[in-house]
């Protein structure tokens, strides 16, 4: 059974790029455009891992992580944040909110897949 990864990003081009790369690597992909959309979808479907941008409207990455950690199905799944070098404090905020790890934008698909296989086997 292929693993399912939810990608959350307000940029459609990123969702296409990342989603495409993940599908090509054999994962099943769910996409959401912000934290509200993600939480809504995840209350109805399940996934094995969440990949989320931090800067999004409506509910940002940190908010989404906090919310997911209160949902029983998602208390222990890996959540990886997409951070940028220009926001160093976010990494710690994310960890405090319960994020598993991070990957720094911009990244190559290969780097992303390496991080994913670090937390999802």
């Amino acid at each position, binding site marked *: 059974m292929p693993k399912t990864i939810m990608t959350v990003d*307000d*940029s*459609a*081009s*990123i969702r*296409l*790029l990342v*989603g*495409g*790369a993940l*599908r*090509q690597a054999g994962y099943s992909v769910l996409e959401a455009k912000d934290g509200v959309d993600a939480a809504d979808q995840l209350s109805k479907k399940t996934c094995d891992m969440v990949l989320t*941008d931090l*800067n*999004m*409207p409506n509910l940002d990455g940190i908010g989404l992580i906090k919310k997911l*950690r209160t949902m029983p199905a998602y*208390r*222990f*799944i*890996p*959540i990886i944040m997409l951070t*940028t*070098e*220009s926001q160093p404090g976010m990494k710690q905020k994310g*960890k405090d909110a*319960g*994020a*598993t*790890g*991070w990957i*720094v*934008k*911009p*990244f*190559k698909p290969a*780097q992303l897949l*390496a*991080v994913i296989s*670090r*937390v*999802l*086997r």
Partner: protein
Amino acid sequence: MNRLLGAMVVIDHEQEAMSAFYEEADELLNDIELTLLEIEADPDSKELIDKLFRAVHTIKGSGAMLGFDKIAAFTHHVESLIDAVRAGEVPVSKLLINQVLLARDHINNMMVAEKGEEAVDDAAEIISGLRALLGNDPDMLVAPPRSSDTKSDSGRDVSYRITFIPEEGIFMRGLDPLMILLELEDHGKAIVTPITESLPVLENMAPEKCYIGYNILLETNADIDIIKDVFIFVEEDSIVEVELIDSSLGDTGATRLGDILVDRGEVKEEEVNQVLAQDQKTGEKLINAGLATESQVAAALQEQKLLRERKKVRESATIRVAADKLDFLINVVGELVTAQARLTDTAVSIGSMQLNATVEEIERLVTELRDNVLGIRMIPIGNTFNKFNRLVRDLSMGMGKDIELVVKGGETELDKTMIEKIHDPLVHLVRNSIDHGIETPEERRVSGKDATGTVVLQAAHVGGSVMITISDDGRGIDYEKVARKAVAKGLVREADLEGMSREDILTFIFLPGFSTAEIVSDVSGRGVGMDVVRTEISKLRGRIEIDSVPGKGTKISIRLPLTMAIIDGLLVRAQDTKYIIPINRIRQCVELTSDIISMAHGRHILQVQEEIVPYVRLREIFNGCARNDKEIEQIIIVEYEESAAGLVIDQIYGDHQTVIKSLGKCYEHVHGIAGATVLGDGSVALILDVPQLVKSAIDDEVEALEHHRGRQEAAGS
């Protein structure tokens, strides 16, 4: 085919993402313009500033991801400025709005230029305007992504001592220590010792907390940074220590537990000395004295074991021994084993307790002696197999092919002489695979295969033999070509080809002088044909078989006897002959009652638990005579391929250890017999090759069925 489609899909989703970006950027640039004007009217709105920031941040981030580096670099300046506004460090002013609008226009120009592949000036003025507003120097370009390119391995195997004590709340962050341990294993061999001292009693244990830490000894050729990288998500909150074990620790002979604990920093040297004065093992003493924990000692013991093994490898003393002296020794030990078996039987019948005790001791010693002596001549074939890595690499590179060698079963042990003698034939066969078998990467892609071809060298103990297989996923053998060549060389008549099966055609390959290579390439050598290979293998009393599927690959199987092997078997009798069935093949013994026979309605099958198992009567296969109705038959259920089969015999005697003696050239073609042995009373028992026996019995059965069917059809028509 999948790879080809895969490549096309890559282009698709990347291009899709790019087109999406153009649209997205357009929208965002529009938003930026509108938002800037709104901010001008309402400069204190935090919401609007955030919105502006997000838009600029997205253009920068997505742009960088998709390779629009210049745009990302320029946008970075704008982002820095807006970030400063967000933080309250820079006030909103008309000048600022103007400057950002200019910047936005420039980004737009850059986007247009990208689509049309034109150049655009580098807007140095705009950039300096933005920086001026910031008042200080922002970091210039988009910071390079964190390089996770693998650093080259140092090549040497080293050992790391790693301590990993996860924070209690590690599971709540979606992390699992097991993943980390598995990742370490990807890099080499890991010995993990848990640290259990923090485990509370059950009543006090919170199921979602992690109480166990790990001491890990990792043998790897990876750089220390690569190993530290494994802990990247946990190193800030968990205890992680990675240390290169000083190899000199083992060199000076210091593999004492106490020294190791001192080196690990877990005990003080004085404490060790103090405790050594008593008469227990160092580890125990330290634990009892409360100077070290059980886990610390356990981990140090692992290190000690590792260091001692390493030392042994470096220092191992060897003695040259004449091979025939060894053979003589092995023979004598074999007879000793037989004699000891008789002694045991005799002792049982005498029934004296005193005698039994001594006889048991002798049995134990003889078994130890037997195992040791056998072990002397046997070495793992893995050493030889591994030498092929270099050969495969050089050959395949020389031919412009991409080939990977996979070695399996390297721990399979063979007699030393056999390993030496099988080397050359193996080289020839591997060269064949590379030269004729595996296609070039282009050819392989066209046929939908992976560009990298695979050659598998595998060894395993099967029945009473060793099976070595060389298989490849190349183009297989062209039966047509072989057949034509055979006709051309006058080895067979055109007409005779008619009824020939693939197997028959393959036998031509073994005839002297037969070679289908158009050019005698340097690689496969001259004058070394498959016939020479087969001769060499026959000299070892082995057999070689080829199996090939055109387009899919070729598999060559070499079966070699273990002439000197002593195995554990079950001694049985069918009619007047005694047989030995290897114990490791046997599942269970069942009585063949008349009920079972009648339930099967004339077919030779019975039900064992959930399985339908076919059986054969040994007496029928070997002697061909009729049943003696007085005796109750027994069925030995043996493993056969993925399922089972039954061998029907008349009497079971019991366990019997035996030296396998080869039957010699006369009988080596007999299917089902692996060798023979001399029993305590001087009689000979035949050792069964179970897989062969069952297979040929099945084949016979199938043949008989078809023959029967043929007759029926003829009768009916």
